[in-house]
């Protein structure tokens, strides 16, 4: 009881208490910024962790792009650095991975597997779900914090440990996991130690997501401010709500699969190892009787909803930014909400379209082709609604809006090229080709990432009270936009020419690929240029924390409740409990003096 009293009347008035208070503050730095339970601080922790891993995953890819563009040529400077670093961490590892700066096939596979894993589970999910979900959702629903602040912190730290484990796995004998981000057994079952660490890391990451999901859903159900009914929730909150359910229900099967693969590797079981396996020329001594397809089913049962975990938060952000910068309500809010719910549900029943080539019979293929095609309908509805929302607006082309607008056609390309891949028969030709790579990268790279950038620029003033530099923001956008297309557009052509993914030499071995592999150089150049265009963003981001233009609490003149809080919001978020009186996107309401009417405004 006493503690509560102290908290509520924390500002001691008499001088006798002041000294004590100062000391208390000193001590609490650690608790305030490291083991914080405030959702905004945790959101920032997620943001920085996510951005760092995003950059790290990108670096892995840039190294791979060197190998693809100039197969077998020593990588300048970086190659020898990586070699010595690996040699220092584990004797001989550098020589096996990067001898004289030349990448080895095993190391290439490691980079590929870890690029996928890191980008998805340590880059985009922490950013889209962890960072934006944590920072924005409680503010948007008018809550003081998340429902379980300590579980929130536990969720972040679990992710942190998982990230460390993944990072450390680069330096163990044999290097990091090299069986693809999908870790198909039996390949993953006979892989080196790195794979064990991958599995351990994944279990931490999954635990993090589960704790996060429980917290988010509970927060959205329980802590909505008075008057914040379900149909008054900003679309971003809806997207996070559905994402939470996807994580909650889709991740546990992968956790089970991870435990089983760990058992296969450490306890000699054969969950995913069939009878009669011949490993390196000798019959293996495991009991056998398992099924490699079981892993694929359990993996893709997560793997497909995971795609929507990556994309839904970005859609939510784009929706917020578009509404704000067209100065008009989102077109078809209800259909957006129902589409996203339907999408979430359907995403659980399409997983086997990743497994068309595993020997699928007519009945099962019919089912999964149908569901896969049906799932395109809500996606088309969402995208159309966002396009149509532009009509009749008064469009401001600021940086967040540019990124949000960039998202639309990029996600459109990514979505549309998913169509041919949805058909089983066409997969006979396009399976495992660069067409697939280009398709899903259009969804997550210029798609999701642009959404996330839009979010960072959009909510930056809320988090810091200052604006990021607009001019450099535009450089960042246009540079990224051009480079992204320079990277992924040629990949469609490579894929159409039959170039397969995960080929260490970029296709040199194959005659049919000779006509298109020269474009690898251009793709790689684009990738490195893309890196250059991130530099203004990084500088802008840190520079603006102290030197950005100071702005009011609601610089974009937006309607949703987070803009009613002070910038940056204090612990507890709102000065007084906000109340929602109307829907989230009441812009340019006829008869109102201003072109926006905040949700929390009484009249």
């Amino acid at each position, binding site marked *: 009881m006493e503690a509560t009293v102290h908290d509520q009347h924390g500002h001691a008035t008499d001088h006798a208490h002041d000294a004590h208070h100062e000391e208390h503050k000193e001590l609490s730095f650690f608790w305030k910024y490291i083991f914080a339970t405030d959702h905004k601080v945790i959101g920032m922790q997620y943001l920085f962790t996510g951005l760092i891993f995003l950059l790290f995953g990108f670096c892995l890819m840039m190294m791979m792009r060197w190998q693809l563009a100039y197969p077998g040529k020593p990588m300048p400077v970086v190659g020898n650095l990586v070699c010595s670093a690996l040699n220092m961490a584990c004797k001989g590892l550098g020589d096996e991975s990067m001898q004289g700066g030349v990448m080895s096939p095993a190391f290439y596979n490691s980079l590929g597997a870890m690029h996928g894993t890191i980008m998805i589970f340590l880059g985009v999910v922490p950013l889209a779900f962890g960072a934006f979900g944590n920072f924005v959702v409680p503010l948007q629903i008018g809550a003081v914090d998340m*429902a379980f602040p300590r579980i929130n912190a536990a969720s972040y730290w679990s992710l942190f440990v998982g990230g460390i484990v993944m990072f450390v796995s680069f330096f163990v004998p044999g290097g990091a996991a090299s069986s693809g981000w999908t870790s198909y057994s039996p390949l993953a079952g006979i892989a080196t130690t790195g794979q064990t660490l991958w599995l351990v890391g994944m279990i931490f990451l999954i635990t993090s997501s589960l704790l996060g999901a*429980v917290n988010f859903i509970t927060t959205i159900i329980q*802590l909505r401010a008075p008057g914040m009914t379900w149909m008054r929730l900003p679309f971003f909150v809806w997207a996070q709500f559905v994402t939470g359910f996807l994580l909650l229900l889709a*991740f546990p099967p992968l956790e089970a699969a991870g435990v*089983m693969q760990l058992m296969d590797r450490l306890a000699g079981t054969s969950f995913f190892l069939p009878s009669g396996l011949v490993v390196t020329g000798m019959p293996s001594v495991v*009991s056998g009787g*398992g099924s490699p397809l079981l892993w694929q089913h359990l993996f893709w049962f997560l793997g497909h909803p995971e795609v929507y975990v990556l994309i839904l938060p970005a859609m939510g952000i784009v929706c917020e930014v578009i509404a704000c910068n067209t100065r008009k309500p989102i077109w078809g809010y209800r259909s957006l909400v129902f589409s996203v719910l339907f999408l979430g549900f359907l995403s659980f029943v399409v997983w086997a379209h990743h497994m068309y080539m595993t020997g699928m019979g007519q009945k099962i293929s019919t089912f999964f082709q149908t569901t896969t095609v049906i799932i395109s309908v809500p996606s088309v509805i969402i995208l159309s609604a966002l396009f149509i929302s532009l009509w009749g607006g008064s469009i401001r082309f600021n940086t967040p809006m540019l990124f949000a607008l960039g998202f639309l056609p990029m996600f459109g390309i990514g979505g549309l090229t998913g169509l041919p891949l949805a058909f089983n028969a066409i997969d006979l030709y396009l399976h495992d080709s660069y067409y697939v790579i280009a398709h899903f990268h259009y969804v997550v790279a210029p798609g999701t990432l642009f959404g996330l950038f839009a979010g960072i620029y959009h909510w930056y003033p809320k988090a810091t009270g200052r604006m990021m530099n607009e001019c450099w923001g535009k450089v960042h956008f246009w540079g990224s936009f051009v480079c992204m297309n320079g990277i992924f557009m040629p990949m469609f052509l490579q894929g159409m020419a039959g170039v397969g993914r995960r080929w260490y030499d970029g296709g040199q071995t194959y005659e049919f690929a000779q006509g298109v592999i020269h474009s690898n150089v251009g793709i790689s150049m684009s990738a490195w240029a893309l890196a250059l265009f991130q530099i203004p963003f990084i500088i802008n981001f840190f520079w603006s924390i102290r030197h950005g233009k100071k702005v009011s609490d609601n610089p974009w003149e937006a309607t949703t409740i987070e803009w009613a809080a002070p910038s940056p919001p204090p612990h507890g978020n709102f000065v007084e409990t906000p109340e929602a009186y109307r829907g989230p996107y009441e812009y340019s309401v006829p008869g109102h003096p201003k072109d926006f009417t905040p949700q929390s405004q009484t009249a």
Partner: protein
Amino acid sequence: MDIPYTVLPRKDTGLWNAKVGIWLFLASEVMLFGALFSTYILLRVNSPETGALKWPHHLLNVPIGTFNTGVLIFSSITVILAWASLVLKNLKAFKWWMGITILCGLAFLGIKSREYYQKFTHYGVFLRDGTVITGHMKNEDVKLKEGEVTRYISNLQVVNGVVNAGPMKGSEIEHVMIAPDAPAGHGHEAAEHKAEKIEGKDIARIASYGPWYSPYFAIYFTLTGLHAIHVFGGMVVNTFMWGPGTKMYFTNPQRFTNRVEVAGLFWHFVDLVWIFLFPVLYLL
């Protein structure tokens, strides 16, 4: 700053936060065990009709399993009584009932580990012609080709529980002695001691009844192991409520009762999983 609805329910949902949270968490647990049960079904459907990997029926000791099921169901009742005592503001009764619940958990784990131990000390020798001889073996029963008898089996058990043998290059077994199990229907004692000698060249592999033995044991140990971790986790929470956590009863009794309710819900779930596990692993 206070987070609302930690103690009293929100009007429109009728729930306090932790209750929503625990139900969501249990939903994810259902998916976790659901995936493992699906694996069980798949492995069982795919298991061969004959041979070494045939699905063993009624291999586990049903009376012990039944007793353990009873222990767990009983603890489910006592945990409700513990919560009810708190609702009735009777802390002493709560302590008693929660204490019994914890003891039941301990008893369950104790019995389970005894069952595990029996499995780990029982061996199967898989012959190259496809037959399997099961029985008991001691370290000195394994004669290696080079050097004297070592703690070979036990050592390897730690690594992967499998002894390489037969024509493989790693084969180092000269022969093994195994005291086979009594064939069903025959006198148990008589057959127990007559050890059989099996030449290394006939052996494909030797394994104890650990998870490495066959898909059945793999899923048996994974399911019961994961369940045991859950029982242990539940016990940790219950012990906290029984011990240091009780402090909160004196400052915020309603919130403490809520906490006990949440812990109880988790405990029920753990019991429920066992109620599926028992028939699936012991009876079917």
